[in-house]
């Protein structure tokens, strides 16, 4: 009996049929895109605020301030950056580094 050899191309073709049967077209790509990009925008803002706070108050203070405020306001940073959290950060920056820095943080978070 001749033994059958199995080639990558055959396995790929079989895998493709398997995928076609599962009908895996991501539904609502545009809404997923909008959701992910909104989260990315929020994370981007947080990272800019953190960088600015770190510049004036130090890396640890910046991280602790953001994490504590997020916990206090029960906020997930990739979902939202609400006004009370921003106010907190702005107040911390004002206390530590003066009013202009606090104002800057507030403006950046908007």
């Amino acid at each position, binding site marked *: 009996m001749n033994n059958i050899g199995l080639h990558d191309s055959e396995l790929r073709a*079989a895998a493709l049929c398997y995928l076609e049967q599962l009908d895996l077209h991501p539904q609502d790509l545009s809404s997923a895109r909008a959701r*992910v990009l909104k989260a990315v925008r929020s994370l981007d803002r947080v990272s800019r605020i953190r960088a600015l706070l770190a510049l004036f108050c130090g890396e640890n203070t910046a991280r602790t301030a953001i994490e504590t405020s997020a916990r206090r306001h029960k906020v997930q940073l990739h979902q939202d950056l609400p006004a009370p959290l921003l106010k907190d950060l702005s107040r911390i920056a004002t206390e530590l580094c003066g009013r202009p820095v606090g104002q800057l943080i507030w403006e950046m978070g908007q």
Partner: protein
Amino acid sequence: MAPVNDPYRTCAWLLKALSKISAKEQSKRLGFSNICQIMMQPEMTFVCHPDIFYVLLSPFSVELPPITDSLVQNFLREPGESSFGDLFDHLYPRLYRYFAVRGFARDLAAELSHDVLLSVFRNSASLRDHSKFYGWLFQIARNTLLQHRRKNHRLDFFPSQLDPAAFFTPPPCESVFYDWIQCLPEDEREICVLRYVDDLDYQSIADSVGIPMGTVKWKLHQAKSKIANLLNAEIGVRR
């Protein structure tokens, strides 16, 4: 005699000649020395032209092209909303498919893909070797999947069913690929799916699963042998 003046016609001629050699020979990865050996066979002797070698070797000498994906490179160079937005359309369907194939319902597959993408955005600075992007991406996907299963099984009290490869979505109708992978142990099944369904190269599979590339090749070879044996046994039974 090969038409030496036209490298493309020569290439077609040689490929036709290659099709005459045994399937076992063909399945070998054809490097330079193999090509030379084949060309030295009496029925294939012809005058060599440098262009012919170029045309012949380029498809065979590299297993898969290195990642030169400009979208990935753009994002890794300048991570930001715009570069990530461009990358999204490229990554999301692959991630969605990754989770959907592994037994997750539509909504959950979308949710987990979302989590992986955010993780990619957050941690992109930690990826030093940009060519390992896909391995790294699927490593995050795999960790997310394991984390999700661990969390759920802790709640459902089924701690024994943690292996990610144990769950693959069964097709609605008969699928030979699904039947084939059922005969494999979990680790080989996972690697087979990463290779043929998720379409990853050896290095990316090694990075995502966390084993050496040689082991990946070996396991794939083993898996293919087992599937081939299964097919041979089936043919034997039919005869």
